[in-house]
């Protein structure tokens, strides 16, 4: 795991200063504290900070091919590199390191861009072809590792993190109102967008080629879909055998490292399965890490204990208290680099600190299982609403929602609300956004807090903005397939793998790996009929069935507990009042100008006054607070902090 940055002259040679490369990499030290290396010629500059995990000695980057015409800087892991390397050696390629990075450069020589299909990994990299004067940047299929870019004064700048781009004085730092509108609709920016004007992200499964000053962006992988005719017709036992075999191999590949690998253990199904497979098949001295909450509503400690008792792992835990969650949130936002609507990234940031303190650099986590196997409540909700939509006048059908929200069914006063709330769009189940429309329409209420200058005045309906991300014939898909696609496109890479993933782990130099996101497993599950994924209303049925005999019954049969963290109790805690005032006083809100200070003041008062608060008010509070912090840390400073008083461990200077 590492940090990468670089500059490319698009029109003519221009001196790329060493200080520029030093400034860019200096703010990425957390991603790679072990070694720093750089390359420059008349056209391009590459710089890399390294967290050594594979090929620890002699793996300093940039790395080159045999004739030193190709140079690469790489962030991430190629898990199947030994197999790929073996073939390349047979084809006559010479290696001078034992890294996975060097494999990429030779694969590129051998196959050109098509080699991306061969990789099983999580990565972002840049290859500079100094002979052809071409730059090639790519990102892994699902978007685990970050890669941002921008163009300014005929120069192309790229980096793992936006803050590195902002060390360059000619790159403007402004909040983009249209992205803010996206976050306040879909919970995240749309693929490729960032909260900063003019700063883009390479979307998941995509690459950029820059040749003769021209930039082309292409997708090489999309989340797969198979029609009913193309799906597999297998018995339940054959399906579960294949799932176990694929997940076993995925975990085996993801344990490849020259350092010990630990695992996160939440007490939920997904992480319990991973810890259990590792423990029984690979490493019976496994280190596991878990989050506990001071606030019992959020705590899953009992389930964690049950797993630890069964597996006997070396378990370590943090107890996240409300004060800590609030006081660390600004630092977390510095790492996340975008406004968010949840405080849930903070405990994960505290957890990676514990992993770092215990001397580990790599952990496996359970993210991705909900997307691939059908675990989220929004999927079940869509299924129950589709069932209702087959006969909208039915009195009985809406009651299936009681399977998800039993408290509504049990409360005679709330029951009529059920129809009003979940009945939105019930007459149009064929609508592309049927599954997400309730969530998105309710989230959009948050845009009411924006000031006139930041309100999106565009005539374009917010659904229409999503249309360009929908594949052809999207509406022919079944209801679960559609909602899986929407969830993966909007939320997986830009929030889960980023704000709750790479960013909060790398903040403490920890690399996380995701066994459920192996593309072979994703592809297999896409070939399984939706009705088996959520069997009746039983979410992740196939995953549960696969591991029913190896896990404690309580873990398999427990109801889904979404991972969340306290919001109001943390941000409005009296103990954090100075922090809150710093970013959200009426005066600051007014001066910054993004939000309407009268409306926000009313919201803060309402939240302080009443003990109980609703979800949307809590989300609004997080959205407003986090946007104010992002402005303060990234836009406000007149001089963006950086340093260049250090020496490179390696510097290749090829200027003529």
């Amino acid at each position, binding site marked *: 795991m590492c940090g990468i940055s670089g500059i490319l002259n698009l029109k003519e040679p221009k001196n790329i200063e060493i200080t520029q490369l030093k400034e860019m990499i200096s703010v990425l030290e957390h991603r790679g504290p072990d070694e720093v290396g750089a390359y420059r010629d008349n056209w391009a500059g590459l710089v890399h900070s390294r967290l050594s995990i594979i090929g620890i000695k002699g793996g300093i980057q940039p790395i080159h091919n045999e004739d030193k015409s190709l140079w690469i800087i790489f962030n991430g892991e190629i898990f199947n590199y030994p197999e790929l390397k073996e073939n390349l050696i047979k084809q006559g390629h010479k290696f001078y390191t034992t890294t996975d990075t060097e494999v990429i450069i030779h694969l590129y020589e051998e196959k050109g861009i098509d080699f991306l299909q061969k990789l099983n990994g999580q990565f972002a990299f840049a290859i500079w072809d100094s002979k052809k004067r071409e730059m090639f940047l790519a990102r892994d299929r699902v978007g685990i590792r970050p890669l941002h870019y921008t163009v300014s004064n005929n120069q192309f700048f790229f980096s793992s993190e936006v803050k590195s781009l902002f060390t360059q004085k000619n790159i403007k730092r402004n909040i983009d109102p249209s992205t803010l509108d996206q976050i306040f609709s879909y919970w995240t920016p749309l693929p490729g967008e960032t909260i900063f004007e003019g700063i883009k992200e390479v979307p998941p499964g995509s690459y950029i080629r820059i040749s003769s000053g021209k930039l082309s962006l292409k997708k090489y992988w999309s989340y797969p879909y198979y029609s009913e005719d193309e799906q597999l017709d297998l018995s*339940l036992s054959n399906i579960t055998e294949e799932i176990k075999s694929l997940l076993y191999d995925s975990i085996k590949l993801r344990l490849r490292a020259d350092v010990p690998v630990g695992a996160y253990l939440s007490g939920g199904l997904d992480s319990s399965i991973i810890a259990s497979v590792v423990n029984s098949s690979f490493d019976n001295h496994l280190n596991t890490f878990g989050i506990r909450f001071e606030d019992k509503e959020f705590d899953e400690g009992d389930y964690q204990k049950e797993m630890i008792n069964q597996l006997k792992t070396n378990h370590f835990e943090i107890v996240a208290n409300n004060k800590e969650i609030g006081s660390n949130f600004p630092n977390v936002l510095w790492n996340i680099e975008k406004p968010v609507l949840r405080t849930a990234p903070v405990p994960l940031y505290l957890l990676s600190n514990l992993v770092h303190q215990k001397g580990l650099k790599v952990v496996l986590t359970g993210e991705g299982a909900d997307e691939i196997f059908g675990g989220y409540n929004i999927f079940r909700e869509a*299924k*129950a609403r589709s*069932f209702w939509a*087959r*006969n909208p006048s*039915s*009195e*009985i*059908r809406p*009651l*299936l929602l*009681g*399977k998800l929200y039993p408290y509504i*069914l049990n409360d005679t006063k709330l029951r009529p609300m059920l129809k009003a709330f979940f009945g939105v769009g019930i007459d149009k189940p064929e609508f592309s956004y049927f599954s997400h429309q309730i969530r998105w329409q309710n989230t959009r209420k948050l845009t009411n807090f924006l000031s006139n200058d930041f309100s999106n005045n565009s005539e374009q309906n917010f659904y229409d903005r999503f249309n360009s991300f929908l594949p052809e014939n999207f509406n022919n898909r079944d209801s679960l397939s559609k909602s899986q696609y929407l969830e993966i496109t909007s939320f997986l890479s830009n929030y889960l793998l980023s704000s709750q993933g790479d960013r909060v782990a790398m903040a403490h130099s920890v690399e996380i790996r995701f066994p459920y996101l192996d593309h072979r497993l994703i592809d297999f599950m896409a070939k399984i009929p939706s*009705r088996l994924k959520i*069997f*009746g*209303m*039983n979410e992740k*049925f196939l995953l549960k*069935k696969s591991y*029913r005999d190896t896990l404690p*019954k309580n873990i*398999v*049969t427990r109801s889904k507990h979404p991972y969340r963290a306290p919001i109001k109790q943390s941000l409005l805690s009296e103990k954090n009042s100075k922090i809150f005032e710093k970013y959200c006083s009426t005066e600051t809100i007014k001066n910054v100008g993004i939000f309407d200070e009268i409306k926000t003041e009313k919201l803060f008062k309402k939240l302080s006054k009443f003990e109980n608060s609703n979800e949307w008010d809590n989300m609004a509070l997080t959205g407003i607070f986090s946007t104010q912090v992002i402005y303060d840390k990234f836009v406000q400073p007149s001089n963006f902090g950086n340093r260049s008083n250090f020496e490179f461990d390696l510097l290749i200077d090829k200027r003529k």
Partner: protein
Amino acid sequence: MEIKENIREFVVENFLFGDGDELENNTDFFEKSIIDSTGILELVCFVEESCNLTISDEEIVQENFSSVDRVSDFVQKRTSNSSQ
């Protein structure tokens, strides 16, 4: 797979956690507390999905959904009616 086996597999997997030893095809779901009222709606949802039917409110009654045999009979009656 036969309709009856399909229904049986669903009930065993979803309501009995895979242990179907005690379930006869004529076992009454309600008498044995195998399925509750929202569970019946899950079963209705499953039957609609796997047999491509839409079931009316009037048909969602104990007589049609109280055992594997009864659900299977109901489905066969409905599918033969619609194919006539």
